[in-house]
C-alpha cells in the first residue's frame, strides 16, 4: 500500500506538471493565432481589383497578361468567372494570345494573382505624347516624336475627334489647324493593315504652348510644312487657291 501511494504521488506530480506545460503552450498558440489573424486583417491580403492587358499566354484555367504598365499579371478563372464580349458566346477557350482583356476580380497580395470574376474582351487605346514634326496633308498623316525619341505615324481619320487646347479649354479642331512643332496627345489603336500606323480616335494639340523641351527632333526629320511655290519669273508667285 505504501508503495502504491508513492507511485501514485509521483504519477500525479508528473501529470500536474505536464498539464501546466500544456496550458502554457495552448496559451502561446492562441496568442500566435491572434497575432497571425490580426496581421492578415491588417495586411488585407485580398482586395477587389480591375486590370486591363494583352494576353501573352493561356494555359488551362490560367491567363497571363501584360498590363497597361507593361507588368506581367497572372489571372485564374474558375466556374464563377463571367465572360463577356461582343460575340454571342465567349469563354476561356475563345481567348488567345494577343487578345485585349479587361479583368475584374479578387487580387491576392500574397500570391499576386487575380481570381477573375469578370473577363471582358476589349481593346484599349494607346496614348502617344510628343511633338508633331511632319505633316502629310495628302494622306492625313502626322508624325510625332516622343520623349524617348521614338517616331509615331498617326493617321487622322473621319472618326478622329480633334481638339485644340486653348484658353484652358478644349475646342474642336481639325487636321488643317495642326502645325509642326506643336505638342500633341494621341489616343489611338494600331492599324491592323499597317502595323506602324496608329489610327487616332482622339487627337489634341496645344497651339499656345512651346514644344516640349524633352523631345529632341533631329534636324533631318524637320520638313517644311508649306510647299514652295515656284516663281513665274515675272516677280509674281503662283499661289494655290
Amino acid at each position, binding site marked *: 500500500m505504501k508503495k502504491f501511494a508513492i507511485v501514485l504521488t509521483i504519477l500525479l506530480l508528473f501529470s500536474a506538471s505536464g498539464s501546466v506545460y500544456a496550458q502554457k503552450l495552448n496559451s502561446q498558440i492562441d496568442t500566435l493565432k491572434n497575432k497571425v489573424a490580426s496581421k492578415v486583417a491588417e495586411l488585407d491580403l485580398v482586395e477587389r481589383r480591375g486590370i486591363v492587358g494583352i494576353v501573352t499566354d493561356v494555359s488551362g484555367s490560367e491567363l497571363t497578361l501584360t498590363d497597361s504598365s507593361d507588368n506581367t499579371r497572372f489571372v485564374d478563372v474558375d466556374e464563377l468567372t463571367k465572360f463577356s464580349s461582343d460575340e454571342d458566346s465567349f469563354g476561356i477557350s475563345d481567348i488567345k494570345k494577343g487578345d485585349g482583356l479587361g479583368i475584374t476580380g479578387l487580387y491576392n497580395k500574397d500570391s499576386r494573382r487575380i481570381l477573375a470574376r469578370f473577363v471582358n474582351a476589349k481593346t484599349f487605346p494607346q496614348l502617344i505624347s510628343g511633338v508633331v514634326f511632319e505633316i502629310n496633308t495628302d494622306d492625313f498623316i502626322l508624325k510625332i516624336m516622343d520623349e524617348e525619341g521614338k517616331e509615331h505615324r498617326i493617321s487622322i481619320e473621319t472618326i478622329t475627334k480633334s481638339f485644340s*487646347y486653348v484658353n484652358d479649354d478644349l475646342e474642336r479642331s481639325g487636321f488643317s489647324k495642326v502645325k509642326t512643332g506643336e505638342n500633341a496627345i494621341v489616343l489611338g489603336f494600331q492599324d491592323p493593315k499597317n502595323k506602324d500606323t496608329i489610327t487616332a480616335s482622339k487627337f489634341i494639340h496645344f497651339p499656345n504652348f512651346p514644344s516640349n523641351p524633352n523631345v529632341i527632333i533631329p534636324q533631318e526629320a524637320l520638313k517644311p510644312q508649306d510647299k514652295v511655290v515656284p516663281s513665274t519669273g515675272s516677280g509674281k508667285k503662283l499661289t494655290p487657291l
Partner: protein
Amino acid sequence: MKKEKFILSIVAGIVGLVVAGGTFYLYQAGKEINPKEIESIVVTTPTPKASGTIFLAIAKPANEEVLTSKSVQINGKTQSDAKILIISTTGQETATPASDGSFSTTITLDENENLIEFIAIAPNGEIATERLVISITTEDF
C-alpha cells in the same frame, strides 16, 4: 490488491496520455523556422513618375480600384502653373490646379474596366502623363 491494481492502471493510462500529449507539444514547440526561410513582404506605394521638372500624382482613386458609382471624383497634384487634361473613352475634361498644385474634378466612366489618361502640361511645354485603370461594377463578389 485487485482494486489497487485497477486504479493504478487507470492512473498510469492517464499519465501515459498526458506524457504523450506533453511530448507532442514539446515536439511542436521545438519546431523553429530558420529566419532565412522567412520571406518578408514589402508593400510598396507607387511614386509619381518624374518627367523633366513637371510632376503629376493622382491621389484618388487608386490605380486598379474597383468602384460602384460611374461618377468618380479625381484628386491629384501637379505644379501650380500646369494645365491638366483627363482623357477616357467616355470623354475628356480639363482642370486647373490651385495655388498649391492640387486639383480635383469629377468624371463619368463606363461600366467595367476604364483606362484613364492624365496629362499635365507646363508653361514651358513639358508634359507629364499618368495612366489609371478604374473598374466600375455594382456586382458583389
